[in-house]
């Protein structure tokens, strides 16, 4: 499985479309077999979506993501865990152990809580990772 995480310093980037870097990891079972960080500076959202397709990414873990980008990715069979915040390593650990969910605020030591969002978007299907 290949997973892509838009990153900012050592954290999941708050925005998919503005992340300076993209971390690409390949996973075999519960082990990471490859890991590379790519610079995405200045690339527009469409170029970022294409980047994900071209590298055969199965899973995207990101912070804020707009509807268009989310739909574009999920329609092409990419599984997206949106609205995830926190340290990259903690997030990857949750992914490896099958505990990762969308809308997750990941704290130190892997302590998590779900983002409870107000308004009409609460529980909309497109949120589900």
């Amino acid at each position, binding site marked *: 499985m290949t997973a892509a995480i838009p990153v900012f310093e050592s954290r999941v980037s*708050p*925005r998919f479309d*503005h*992340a300076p870097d993209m971390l690409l990891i390949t996973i075999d079972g519960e082990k990471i077999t490859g890991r590379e960080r790519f610079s995405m500076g*200045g690339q*527009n959202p469409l170029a970022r979506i294409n980047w994900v397709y071209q590298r055969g990414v199965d899973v995207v873990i990101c*912070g804020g993501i707009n509807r268009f980008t989310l739909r574009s990715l999920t329609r092409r069979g990419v599984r997206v865990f949106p609205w995830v915040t926190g340290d990259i390593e903690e997030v990857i650990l949750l992914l490896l152990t099958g505990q990762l969910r969308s809308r997750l605020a990941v704290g130190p030591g892997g302590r998590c809580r779900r983002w409870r*969002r107000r308004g009409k978007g609460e529980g909309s299907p497109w949120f589900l990772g």
Partner: protein
Amino acid sequence: MEKQKQDRFLSTILDSIADGVFTVDTEWRITSFNKAAQQITGVSQEDAIGQRCSDVFQASICQTACALKKTIETGQQIIDVPIDVLNNRGTRVPVSISTAVLRDEAGKVVGGVETFRDLSALEELKKEITKRYTFMDIISKNHRIQEIFVVLPDVAESDSTVLIQGPSGSGKELFARAIHDLSFRKEGPYVVVSCGALPDTLLESELFGYIKGAFTDAKKDKPGRFKLAQGGTIFLDEIGDISPAMQVKLLRVLQEREYEPLGATAPVKADVRVIAATNRNLAELVEGERYRQDLYYRLNVVKIDLPPLAQRREDIPLLVEHFVHSFNLKKGKHITGVSAKVLDLLMRHDFPGNVRELENIIEHAFVLCRGKVIELEHLPEEISGRMKAAGIEGEALGDPLTESEAKVIRETLVANAGHRGKTARALGIHPSTLWRKMKRMGIKAE
């Protein structure tokens, strides 16, 4: 107890503010988050407190140009910077932010405060106005262009030959493209030929193509632009510049709907709609016997006359906004617009190159502008130089109407050898009114 009471009081004040307000500590953790902030971001106060502001705010500048970080580092306030955030539904919300530093009683920095105003309603209003003045890709609120907008769908549907006349850079190709896109041929090809750019022999082979062996270098068949446009539209630009010999050949296509590729022995049927354009006055060329009358009539089935930009000055602010938006997308910049002085100067410029010239001016400014607003120094030298040449300096720039009035007064004074009485009579105003106006505008009779 007293502290709790104070906090409640502060919270009540913050919640009564219509703008979103949040504060952070020096670790970028949110320490307060008012009601409006919850409404704009869709994140509850309970969830937001203690989280990093970038995780909650998800603004376009969080990672590259954090305004709060800049304020805390420099102590400088930031006021009304337009950015966008994502709300809980993944929808982009345009906001304008302001930031300030928070200090304790000893003056030590303890964090920052950011306020943000939802600009969605304002943007919607802007969009509505733009929509009203936009037709396909053409933007105008000029009454002459608006009249063309009304008839354009009928023109497109008719499949008739169209002649578009207008000065260079006035947008003739945009109209041609709009007609094609609105016609039943829209799924077919749209082929552009700039007739003035090619010599006669080349133009003929370019338009009609040739058959293998038609001339020494014709090693294989080459389809012409009419063939490539089969089932669609051909846009013949600079049609006023073609030679008399080409005029005859083109006339045949328009009359018979057929043409002969070079070296061919039989004519080929042309199922192509012709849209022609020129910056010359074809009627005058016909009168001067430099253009075939019969071709002119064939081309002039439906005629669209485009005014120069100088005659549709009301479109300049709309076009400026459009080009700023489009260059922002192309060049990945976040320029918000032009300063009042720049717009003032553009409103007075004659634009001999029309809309294309305006587009080039904005593109030039985009190269030099590193801030949010295009200023006079970002304009090309020949444009900003005109301001100095006209004796108009910085703050002295007034409204265009006053400038036009001053110009008329100066010209009438010159025509009357500086005689104020005669000038006033010629202008139909009282001499004392003229004197007052001259004094206000700094005009001297010489």
